[in-house]
């Protein structure tokens, strides 16, 4: 196995901070993510994991009164630079949300390919092809192949989440952010998503928030541990879960805290 620490850095946060009005939710995070790795973020509820993740693709700023400071470098370029087009940033850093959010007025097929449509791709064969590939990757194809034209919202919660994953994959983003993507899924669907992540890791970099320690230990290459907007520890998952440096991390992963 090649040394993960030698892989190329694709995304870096530098002194990244976030606020909701006066509330300081993310307090100066500096970390880098390597190409084609899975990076888990763990930590107690309310510690700012989602907020941090949402700063990485500039969704955080869409909330009224929310703001950020610091830098996020995607392949060396600061996505918060004034000259950078936020639309382009979000195309290259995809996101899957905690709660499945397919577009309610769209069919399953349209939901998957909407990202491509936004980029001006309208050739039907291309769209159908991409839809099949992405739905297969998201382990949903067999369940929906006969009803691609039914509404996306007619699916079960877990299926909707896999639909959202397919939708995010369709635009082929080099970095994929996932906020507790399996918290609404049953163990079988969860296993499928984990399998999927191992698969997409060959092409993408994944940053995933999870409350499931076993999941983080199973699938991730690196893990960060957050408490109250601070990153307490970041390192190879193998180290964090067997031999954490910080007492707080040890307490949390052994279930004594949080």
């Amino acid at each position: 196995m090649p040394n993960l620490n030698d892989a190329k850095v694709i995304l870096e946060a530098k002194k990244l901070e976030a606020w909701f009005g006066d509330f300081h939710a993310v307090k100066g995070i500096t970390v880098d993510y390597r190409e084609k790795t899975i990076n888990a973020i763990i930590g107690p509820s309310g510690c700012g994991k989602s907020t941090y993740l949402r700063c990485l693709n500039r969704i955080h700023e869409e909330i009224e009164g929310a703001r950020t400071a610091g830098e996020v470098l995607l392949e060396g370029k600061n996505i918060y630079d004034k000259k950078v087009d936020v639309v382009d940033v979000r195309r290259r850093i995809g996101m899957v949300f905690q709660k499945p959010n397919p577009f309610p007025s769209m069919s399953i097929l349209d939901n998957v390919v909407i990202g491509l449509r936004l980029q001006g791709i309208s050739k039907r064969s291309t769209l159908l092809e991409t839809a099949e590939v992405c739905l297969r990757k998201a382990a949903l194809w067999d369940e929906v192949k006969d009803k691609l034209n039914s509404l996306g919202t007619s699916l079960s919660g877990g299926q909707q989440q896999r639909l959202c994953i397919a939708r995010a994959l369709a635009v082929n983003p080099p970095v994929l952010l996932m906020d507790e993507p399996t918290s609404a899924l049953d163990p079988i669907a969860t296993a499928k998503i984990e399998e999927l992540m191992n698969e997409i890791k060959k092409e993408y970099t994944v940053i995933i928030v999870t409350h499931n320690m076993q999941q983080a230990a199973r699938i991730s290459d690196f893990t960060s541990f957050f408490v109250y907007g601070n990153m307490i520890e970041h390192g190879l998952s193998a180290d964090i879960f067997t031999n954490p440096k910080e007492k707080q991390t040890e307490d949390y992963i052994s279930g004594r805290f949080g």
Partner: protein
Amino acid sequence: MIKLKSKTQDALLFYVLRTISLVVIALLLGIIFVLIQAAWPAIKAGGLTFLFSKEWNPVEDRYGALPFIFGTLVTSLVALLIATPVSVLIALFITEYLPKSISRIVALLVEMVAAIPSIVFGLWGVFYLAPFVKKVLAPLLKTHLGFLPLFQGPSFGIGILTAALILSIMIVPTISSICRSIFELVPAHQKEASYALGSTKYEMIKLAILSPSVSGISSAVVLGLGRALGETMAVTMLIGNSPVISSSLFSPAATMASVMANEYADANTPLHISSLCYLALLLFLITFLSNLFARTIVKSFSKG
């Protein structure tokens, strides 16, 4: 003891509420009954041909409703064509562009427009809007769109277009406030889903806000239509009140409501009075149906 008291109280409340509801229903049925009764001579004389006859001639005592049905529908439709996009844009501006603190004030101001009495709109229309249409808008339309029959012929300021404009201003608050509450219902996660795929704000609005709101917007439009169909005072002052059917929007016309307001006082033959009542019945029927229609859309909207 206490038990007994609460029982009589409840019983009393029930009787009061039941009586009030019954009175309201009785009133509605009573109005319909009286209208039918008063319209009966005209219904007997004209029947359904009343609806399709173009002639409205009190001198010779011959009556047909077509010019008024035409005037009512055309002014209302033109008003909707103007008011709908304006209302949707206002609602989008308020919900998506203004910070919350300011948006409340702007929303309130827009809704205040609905509180302006119809007669005030009428006066403003006579003094400002009609001259504006005559001197600015009509010549402009004629030079650019004069090849359309809609914009041919002379404009005297007063006519279909002016009445439709005033109507559109009057129904914007209705439509925009319903649209606003529909847009506010769009969950933040839908907008974020759209942004996360790399949409511009314009694309986000199309994708996450407008496309799921189509049926809601339609019901807002139909409710606006209900208001436009029955509006009387301002329209009567601005439409020119002549029962003609013309393809030009500059032409004067008359609506069902405006002819009633104009003629009920000096209608002297029984058939004339009865024909006005027949018009009233028709107008009631049309607004009733359009309201019913709006309600079914709202229902299917809240279900889906």
